[in-house]
């Protein structure tokens, strides 16, 4: 057979079909790329969130430790102040008890324990003791017992046993 026209190669797809297919491919590629980008971003956000949560937990534990240290300092401060206050109370108590001793009476021993005061001394007469020393002792102590021993010169050696009141005793704890 003879033809007046030369044979042309027939393309698989026509021009407009090719254009559409390229458009399809680019669109799908862009959408999938965008989705992958978002997933990647989400992955990194997730990783950072995990890191932040871990750091938050570590900081929380550190805060607990710091607070424990703060509480310990407050405890130390309270103890320190308490001890000094109690030392002052002790000093005042001893000073007040020794100031009770009137001039005519001299002391040999002054034994003060937590709930008891024992005084050994010499008094010119029983009356001096009973009038000048006994009343203040009776006002402070719950019970007061005094034993006198006469000396050759007529003066008296005495031993005074005084038991402290319960509320006063607690003040020294």
């Amino acid at each position, binding site marked *: 057979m003879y033809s007046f026209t030369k044979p042309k190669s027939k393309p698989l797809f026509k021009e*407009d*079909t090719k254009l*559409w297919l390229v*458009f*399809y491919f680019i*669109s*799908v590629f862009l*959408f*999938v790329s*965008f*989705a*992958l980008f*978002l*997933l990647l*971003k*989400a*992955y990194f*956000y*997730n990783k*950072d*969130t995990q890191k*932040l*949560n871990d*750091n*938050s937990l570590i*900081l*929380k534990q*550190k*805060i607990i430790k*710091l*607070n424990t*240290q*703060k509480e*310990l*300092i*407050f*405890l*130390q*401060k309270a*103890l*320190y102040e308490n*001890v*000094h206050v*109690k*030392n*002052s109370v*002790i*000093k005042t108590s*001893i*000073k007040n008890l*020794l100031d009770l001793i009137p001039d005519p009476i001299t*002391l*040999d*021993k*002054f*034994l*003060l*324990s*937590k709930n008891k005061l024992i005084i050994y001394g010499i008094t010119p007469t029983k009356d001096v003791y009973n009038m000048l020393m006994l009343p203040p002792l009776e006002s402070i102590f719950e019970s007061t017992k005094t034993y006198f021993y006469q000396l050759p010169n007529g003066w008296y050696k005495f031993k005074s046993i005084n038991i402290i009141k319960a509320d006063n005793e607690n003040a*020294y704890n």
Partner: protein
Amino acid sequence: MKMPTINLKKLKLPKIKVYGIDVIKNFLFFFFYIILILIIIATILAPSVKLFKKTKKEYFLAKNQFETIQKQYQKTSQELNSLKDKNQKIINALTRKFDINNFKLFAKEYMKIKSIKKLKTEPYKEKFIKTSYLIEANIKSPKDFYDFIDASKNYKNLIRIYFPFNFVKNDKDINLTFKIDVYNLKNKLNAEEKAH
């Protein structure tokens, strides 16, 4: 009865051309394009956006929480440091080991110490330990003892002057017996003892 058959080869799209462009074919391509995009959005893009938004929200929430905790940590840390600075003397007093010779040197100004006898060590209020010593000393007058109690505030250990107080008069001065309690932090002293 015969079922009607459809011959797909005979099924051809009508061709409507405008300026050489096949309108029906292009319309179908456009239609399929829209369908394809909707499918991609529904199956890939929408879940990705949803996940992204969720993780972003969680991230900023965690970041916010972290910053709040960090501020709190810095504040607590500053408070602790300032507390330590203010109470350095107290902290030192409770962490330092009691040295008998040093104490004798300190008390020398107020009394002549004859002996210091260690009585016992016991826990005190969970965090502390208390060591008791019995001291025998000579003083010239009770005032020396009062001054000693006042001065104990400035001693480098925390000491409590405690019962019993025995004042016994002798020829020249007064024999004084009393007890002191020395307080230390429990853990610090344990650590020191282990180190030795």
